[in-house]
């Protein structure tokens, strides 16, 4: 691959030939514009391009995301979103994570509302739902995303809407490509609502449509939501989804319901897609279908939590780990996602919370996320790296 005169790495194949034209413009719809987080490049001689001031390998993707200038080195890589390392440096990785987490905790202590206090007062009794995602186990297959869509009646968007970034998935797989661009590594990161105990979305809603349960769930009350989208703006993880149009035929007005095809749109036998009885059978009856103009997001499969709690109650016993499993957890073929009661010291999730490679995404902003990730460790021969 080459570097153009502005110093941008050219990611496309240069020897491609056009063999025919369709005379039709097609939009390319994707859910993630930006994939890289610290990609190093080599010049024509195969030498890693170094930063002139520090001598370290230059992250060429820092430049490609800017319109003017050479980019800000570290603007992508210094974010506490993904942690990864090689197996032989695992000690170093664990140390690095610990250092970053200590630093974040130090910052988070600078508050007049110490979290430890209200954690003890409000969340130490009963359940506190936690999730653990092991980035080592995640293969990025997307089964969790599909399971979530099926379980939670999440509307599936067409190309036009995805092109406008109107995808509705509650759970997405973020891809971050890093290291040498000719032979890059990738981290897949399932990203869903982090159910923050100090959630920035909750305090900004003017009508209190999103609030916190005593079990640490960040809840959405759809019929209270008036759709200011302030919560979505203030979500650092950008996991909140807005019903821009009437995606589920659940609206007061019928203007923008999706029809099976244009032909049947205005005829008497034409039914909106979701008004068809057979189609409606895909919907999960345990989950509310959302109307246009409201925000929705991952609920930690609250319907399954409630069902599990009721089962335990009916059988007059304490809740077991196996009573509650989220849809994404059950779908994951590699067991990367573990969900459970963090207050129950015998639960699998509580055990996983002891992993020294654990970290919390964006821990330094003190939102007190309930989802913990385990850093990605690769075990690969150095010879393959180049």
């Amino acid at each position, binding site marked *: 691959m080459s570097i153009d005169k502005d110093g941008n790495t050219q990611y496309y194949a240069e020897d491609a030939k056009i063999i025919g034209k369709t005379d039709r413009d097609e939009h390319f719809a994707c859910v993630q514009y930006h994939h890289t987080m610290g990609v190093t490049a080599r010049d024509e001689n195969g030498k890693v391009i170094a930063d002139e001031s520090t001598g370290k390998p230059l992250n060429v993707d820092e430049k490609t995301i800017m319109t003017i200038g050479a980019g800000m080195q570290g603007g992508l890589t210094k974010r506490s979103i993904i942690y990864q390392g090689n197996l032989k440096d695992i000690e170093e990785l664990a140390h690095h994570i610990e250092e970053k987490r200590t630093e974040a905790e130090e910052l988070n202590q600078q508050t007049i509302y110490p979290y430890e206090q209200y954690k003890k007062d409000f969340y130490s009794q009963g359940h506190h739902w936690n999730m653990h995602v092991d980035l080592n186990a995640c293969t990025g297959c997307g089964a969790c995303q599909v399971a979530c869509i099926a379980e939670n009646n999440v509307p599936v968007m067409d190309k036009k809407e995805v092109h406008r970034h109107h995808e509705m998935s509650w759970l997405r797989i973020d891809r971050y490509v890093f290291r040498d661009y000719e032979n890059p590594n990738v981290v897949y990161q399932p990203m869903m609502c982090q159910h923050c105990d100090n959630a920035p979305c909750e305090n900004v809603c003017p009508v209190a449509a999103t609030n916190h349960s005593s079990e640490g769930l960040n809840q959405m009350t759809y019929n209270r939501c008036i759709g200011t989208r302030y919560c979505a703006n203030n979500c650092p993880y950008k996991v909140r989804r807005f019903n821009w149009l009437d995606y589920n035929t659940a609206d007061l007005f019928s203007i923008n319901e999706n029809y099976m095809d244009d032909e049947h749109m205005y005829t008497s036998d034409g039914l909106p897609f979701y008004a068809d009885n057979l189609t409606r059978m895909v919907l999960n009856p345990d989950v509310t279908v959302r109307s246009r*103009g409201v925000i929705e997001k991952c609920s930690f499969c609250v319907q399954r939590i409630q069902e599990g709690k009721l089962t335990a109650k009916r059988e007059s016993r304490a809740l077991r780990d196996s009573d509650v499993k989220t849809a994404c957890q059950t779908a994951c073929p590699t067991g990367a996602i573990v969900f459970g009661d963090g207050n129950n010291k015998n639960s699998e999730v509580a055990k996983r919370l002891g992993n020294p490679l654990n970290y919390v995404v964006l821990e330094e902003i003190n939102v007190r996320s309930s989802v913990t990730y385990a850093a990605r460790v690769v075990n690969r021969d150095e010879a393959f790296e180049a």
Partner: protein
Amino acid sequence: MSAAVSPIREPLIQGSKTYHQITEDICSPTERTPSMAWIIAFIVASSGLALYVFCLIWTIWVGIGSWNLNRTIGWGWDITNFVWWIGIGHAGTLISAILLLFRQRWRTGVNRAAEAMTIFAVMCAGQFPLIHMGRLWLGFFIFPYPNTRGPLWVNFNSPLLWDVFAISTYFTVSLLFWYTGLVPDLATVRDRAKGLRRKIYNFLSFGWTGAAKHWQRFESLSLVLAGLSTPLVLSVHTIVSFDFATSVIPGWHTTIFPPYFVAGAIFSGFAMVQTLMVMTRKVLNLEQYVTLEHIESMNKVILLTGTIVGVAYLTELFVAWYSGYIYEQFAFYNRVMGPYWWAYVGMMSCNLLSPQIFWFKKIRRSVFWTFVMSIFVNIGMWFERFVIIATTLARDYLPSSWSYYVPSWVEIGLFVGTLGLFFTLYLIFSRVAPVVAVAEIKQILKVAGDQYTGTNAHKAHHAKGAGVHH
């Protein structure tokens, strides 16, 4: 008002006006048939209003999906327009309240139009928080009213709720202030009118007779309302800035926002006053009441507030760098160098750089340059809000969710449409009410009329006036 006038003060009323001439000059535009210029302007403005209504219905009927906002950028032109309009309103309140308390006589030439501008701008601003809601028909949820849902209260932690109170208070007080000032002038119009017109103006002027008791109450109420409005000049835009400052988004979470927003609001408000007054004084022949002295004073305010805003921009950059916090640093780097660099350039050049030409007295007193600059500042302040809102949201914490945003025709139509709403209201106002406060101009005639003060004053008046005190 005191009769002591500094000799360096220029007269604020030119043309050796008598009291009758003042009444004649200012009231007659409401009595004549409208000029061709007014009719054309009104057709253009009301077409804009029609466009607004169309886009509004479209938005409600189709949904917010008719806009191009996306999962990353939840606010775009809608809230940009909201903040822009609410900022514009601030000059009217500053002129009517703070300048009244400081006894600045030049306010009398422009306060009526500026207050009207405030009210119309707040009306335009108030549209956006409503129509940006996904479910406008449930918008009444934002009011804390008794209900059977628990009762379920609003969330008093939310800055959007503070906005509801701030803006409704602001609109109410501004409307009261404006209308109070109008009462004696509407009575003046009534006294000159006949038939139905007389009846209407009699009703509108609450049966004002000009009795000493009326004047006493009028003055007291004006002072009380000025006292109420003064904190509003500072508080309203402070609260609007809290929409951003209390969030966690880098580039929004900034303690500098309240003073920076207030300065920006006064800056853009004065620019809009200039845009309106330069046109109004020309069309209605009011050059002797809205003089170059008035224009220069307002340009000085624009220079000052523009520079304050500029210092705030530079401070933001410095603090981002000094913070050592990567998200903050990136947010500001991205504002300047990222895909929305052109908005940042627009903001910096229109708000910080171009008003610096007002250091030159010649330009401060040039009607042409004043008009050009007022448009520049309006554009620049719109860009400022766009930079703060859309550019910041486009690239926040997780690079996976970054996106870009271009408005749809509906969003553009809504903005252009509110300009139509604003100018329709202003044009109607200029036809039905005196655009300069007749009673207040008369109050300052003896101290600021050019036959009494300044270099061309009649010496006899001075000698006589001074003699009284001996």
